[in-house]
């Protein structure tokens, strides 16, 4: 999904946080050292090949067996270069170890096959697949998994960390630009690994406050006699409730929380725009859109009218 990510929305080379910038600076450093060594080696190789190519009448080469000083030189030279790489490396390792100040916004990130759950324990709100964070404030993510190993990765905001069942990994960053950044799961996690995408929305401070207020409110109640109200009835008597939470309506915890699903811009973990056509196809047959999806085809299938009502209801949950 595009948003305002520019031509390369998942680029690691356009950092938008302190964390991403630290690794970018380090990588740029290493790149130039490597480029220098590359030039030296390849130039020597090409010069040797041209200068010492076989020509008729050339005297037999001197049977040189080696040269101790040269061996010492080309042992020490790379060692010296590596010192220049290793020192900033270790400094950056400790600077990016996931520590955050006490006032940091804390978010629990839970990987599922194949979607992301985001919990804000201090705010008491739960959402999925679209992480909202405020500009300029430190954010600390505590990352784990509900099933297999995943990796949370939003490249413009920093490097990845694995989401491992039974373990908690932390990353911390301070976003430096308002924007809508894309990322995705980076650890192979089964059939739909490629479809486990995510978005991180960096809001202005006031924008984040507004978003949080909306998310904290209860789900919208459809007006009497509307299609959406019929949709809620369909929802309540269908298998949906076994897996999804809509606060006050259903308590399921296997799938994403839908209390404010209408406020999200994508569905299917960043796969499709959140519009009625895609919602309808998704409800009818999720595995056809997302291989292996644990949201099975409804048995018996819902009627088209039921699906349309459900779509209207979900879209009303702004």
């Amino acid at each position: 999904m595009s948003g305002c990510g520019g031509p390369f929305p998942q680029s690691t080379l356009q950092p938008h946080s302190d964390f991403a910038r630290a690794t970018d600076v380090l990588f740029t450093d290493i790149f130039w050292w490597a480029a220098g060594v590359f030039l030296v080696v390849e130039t020597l190789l090409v010069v040797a090949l041209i200068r010492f190519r076989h020509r008729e009448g050339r005297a037999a080469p001197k049977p040189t067996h080696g040269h101790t000083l040269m061996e010492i030189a080309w042992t020490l030279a790379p060692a010296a270069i590596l010192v220049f790489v290793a020192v900033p490396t270790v400094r950056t390792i400790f600077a990016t170890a996931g520590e955050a100040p006490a006032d940091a916004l804390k978010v629990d990130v839970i990987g599922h096959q194949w979607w992301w759950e985001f919990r804000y324990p201090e705010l008491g709100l739960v959402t999925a697949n679209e992480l909202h964070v405020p500009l300029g404030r430190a954010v600390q993510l505590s990352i784990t998994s509900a099933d297999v190993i995943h990796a949370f990765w939003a490249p413009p905001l920093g490097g990845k960390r694995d989401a491992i069942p039974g373990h908690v990994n932390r990353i911390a960053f301070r976003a430096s630009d308002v924007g809508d950044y894309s990322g995705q799961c980076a650890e192979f996690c089964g059939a739909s690994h490629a479809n486990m995408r995510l978005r991180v929305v960096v809001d202005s401070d006031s924008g984040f406050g507004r978003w949080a207020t909306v998310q904290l409110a209860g789900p919208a109640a459809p007006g009497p006699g509307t299609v959406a109200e019929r949709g809620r009835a369909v929802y309540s008597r269908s298998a949906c409730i076994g897996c999804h939470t809509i606060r006050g309506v259903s308590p399921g915890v296997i799938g994403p929380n839908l209390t404010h699903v209408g406020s999200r811009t994508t569905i299917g973990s960043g796969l499709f725009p959140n519009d009625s056509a895609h919602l309808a196809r998704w409800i009818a047959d999720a595995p056809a859109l997302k291989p292996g999806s644990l949201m099975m085809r409804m048995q018996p299938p819902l009627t088209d009218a039921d699906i349309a009502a459900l779509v209207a209801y979900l879209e009303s949950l702004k």
Partner: protein
Amino acid sequence: MSDARGLSSWLTTTDHKRIGLLYFWTALAFFLIGGIEALFIRVQLAQPNGHLVSAETFNQLFTMHGTTMIFLALMPLSSAFFNYIIPLQIGARDVAFPRLNAFSYWVFLLGGLLLNASWLVGPLFHAGMLNVAPDGGWFGYANLTERQFSPGPNIDFWQLGLQTLGISSLAAGFNFIVTILNLRAPGMTMMRLPVFTWMTLVTQFIIITAFPVITVALVFLMFDRLFGTHFYLTSAGGTPILWQHLFWLFGHPEVYILILPAMGVVSEVLPTFARKPLFGYPVVVYSGILIGLMGWGVWSHHMFSVGLGPIADSAFAATSMLIAIPTGVKIFNWVGTLWGGDIRGTTALHFAVGFVAMFTIGGLSGVSHASPPADLQQTDTYYVVAHFHYVLFGGTVLGLFAGIYYWWPKMTGRLLSESLGKWHFWLQFVGMNLAFFPMHFIGLLGMPRRVYTYAPELGVGGLNLASTVGAFLIAVSILVFLLNVWHSARHGRAAPNDPWGGATLEWSIPSPPPAYNFSVIPTVTSRLPRWKTEHHEAMRDPPATPPAPIHMPGGSWWPLVAACGLPVMALSVLTHTLWLVFAGAAILIFGIYRWAFEPFEV
């Protein structure tokens, strides 16, 4: 080679040269299969939202591509040279344990067939064809590979295949260590060993120490899947991270198992065609040993995103960077070998120089993975795919092709076409750079690996298309190679003993060598026995006919019989049939028993 003809002479052979050829042709076939899998992957990814194959099929394709190339193509291609060339280089009549050598080959073949049978046997497991091949990645990370998340037989095929192949590698490893240490010709001291033999020796030590680790990891996995243990499950106090430590404790040394033999080949080819001894022989040997040792202390650099903590990350960053030093030293010594030489631009030299040039790129991108913060942006992306293809294709594959062009005349008695060879090289060289260089950018722009599809918004469609074109150029280059092989078999000129002016013992005997190799075991007085140096005259080649009759052991059926027990035991696990495991064990024990008491025939 032995003069006996017919199928049974190959099934029972214990001649290291025949076994070397069996390894070669089998590995080449698997190399083609792995290559075809790669082409499917590249067509799927040629554009965003590709849909040539399904997600499930794609996951099987990349799993089998990696597993096949590593265990069934590159390792056994190296084994082909170990088998054919090592006894010739050290002046021996055969390996130390010829029947064990045959056993290694048959186990390798059966293990490879077992893995690949998974493509076809879906219907036996109530699934379609192309449904039960391994699909957990060559790295098979637990807990995705546990029964709960991978209920089908896919992962069983994978873990049983790898366990079988491990037995083959271990048997061969011990065999070659004993061979190199004990069967050297008189005067062939350790520091006179050809560098290819040295690198083979180091490789075998890594094999016999690394493969037990993966075997343990696989047995744990098998117990988790079959018997409900919890080695990799958090639910009963286990952890999936244990798998990662065990796997990479094997997996990183495995990288050196793949690259050291190719480094050995290059260290033979460059001096021969530069007409100059290898620059800094002892340093090249010691740095090879050092790489082998240091390879044991870097495994966690595959796990920087696991969150092992800043202390562990710093330690493994340091060890990983240190390993760049002996590697760099080797590269400078190869350049030093060419410097001041009289360089003959044969196809073998093209590939050897290509190795040095391309491996350098793979080594340098490796330094950025050794830096954990940078690696957090790169690991599990196409940047890593670019990196290890420069190491394993730019390095190992180019190095092994250098070996193929160099030793082909010795192994087949015929020359390959040099002009077809040059076509092969340049197509492959351009193809690999077009295929793998854009992957650096694809990864840095945010495309993860092991994805069967990607969004057009990522902006990497054009780069992926270029990469796919490169992959097909590589395929064309391989076709040119096959044409060259065919041409050599039909019209190739007969090879003399020494078409290249080589310095080592294998060039002192006919091409292909007779069954007994050396009519008289040579006495070695120099590191470059066939070259005149300041201190030594060139050795006299052994006479064309042996002055006295030479006893060579005959063939045996028992290694093949014993090997057949292993896939039967694997079948027992696949089908959950207990009696089969006893049947398989009985075949194995019967084979070994008859083998042990086989009469010593003349």
